[in-house]
């Protein structure tokens, strides 16, 4: 018989809140509500990480996902005027998508439930030593090459996002596209990117050992 204390109440509560908010984030009509549900999901996951004694990752999750990604998403929703409620009809392809997702869910959960080796408890009941100092040492020694690569990913993402999202020609407000050649307008519009990019190149080069 299972004792009441064996039931992981804290875990189940966090998981239920996270999953419900995830479902809401994917199914609500109003996109801003979706974005806010996404924030709740991210916070729930951060709580799960804390529960698993991965404090640093939990706080990184809050900082990066809640503080940056979710806010970025909400900004984009507002910038693209998606805040109005949009009705999208349930098409045939979305039913196919639902079928695929249910199939994936079943084939993921069933082996997890039946597999005996995954029912294990932690190898050590005490939390593993994941001090910030040890994480930093690992990052600068063993994982320094991926760290450099990640710095390059972030540099590329920033350059790319600035180039794509900025408007090339301030005079042109006409959204209708035309394939005409725009060759020599770079002098004016390059300036905002220029200042941002110079700081990016200096940071990434200073990270090189």
């Amino acid at each position, binding site marked *: 018989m299972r004792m009441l204390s064996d039931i992981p109440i804290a875990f189940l509560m966090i998981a239920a809140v996270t999953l419900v908010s995830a479902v809401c984030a994917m199914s609500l009509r109003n*996109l801003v509500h979706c974005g806010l549900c996404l924030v709740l999901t991210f916070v729930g996951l951060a709580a799960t990480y804390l529960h698993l004694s991965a404090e640093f990752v939990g706080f*990184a999750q809050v900082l990066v996902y809640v503080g940056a990604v979710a806010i970025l998403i909400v900004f984009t929703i507002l910038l*693209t005027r998606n805040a109005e409620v949009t009705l*999208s009809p349930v098409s045939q392809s979305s039913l196919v998508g639902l079928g695929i997702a249910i199939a994936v869910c079943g084939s993921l959960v069933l082996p997890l439930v039946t597999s005996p080796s995954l029912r294990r408890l932690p190898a050590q009941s005490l939390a593993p030593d994941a001090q910030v100092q040890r994480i930093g040492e690992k990052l600068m020694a063993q*994982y320094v090459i991926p760290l450099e690569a990640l710095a390059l990913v972030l540099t590329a*993402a920033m350059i790319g996002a600035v180039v794509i999202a900025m408007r090339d020609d301030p005079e042109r407000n006409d959204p209708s596209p035309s394939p005409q050649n725009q060759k020599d307008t770079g002098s004016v519009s390059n300036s905002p990117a220029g200042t941002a990019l110079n700081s990016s190149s200096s940071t990434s080069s200073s990270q090189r050992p």
Partner: protein
Amino acid sequence: MTPLHYYLIFAALLFSVGLAGALMRRNAILVLIGIELMLNAANLNFIAFWRYSPTANELVGLMFVLFSIGIAAAEAAVGLAIIISIYRHHRSTQLQHVDRLKG
């Protein structure tokens, strides 16, 4: 403590919710949200496996999650910039309106 497979089932459900949303919703921003949920599910797997592994002090799974969080942020930034440029051309972020390329 909670057995490992509770966390794995949680992650699998989260992954499936994200996948369902990414495949079903017709709005590019919602597809991106679905993808973020899938990435987070993978992160949860990593942390759970890390905490329950006999060599947890090696911090392998934890490190992977740190890198994956950084990459997800970069991906979101690029994705949202692309969505803004789509909106500039098509005045919409609904995927069914973005269908010039066919064949």
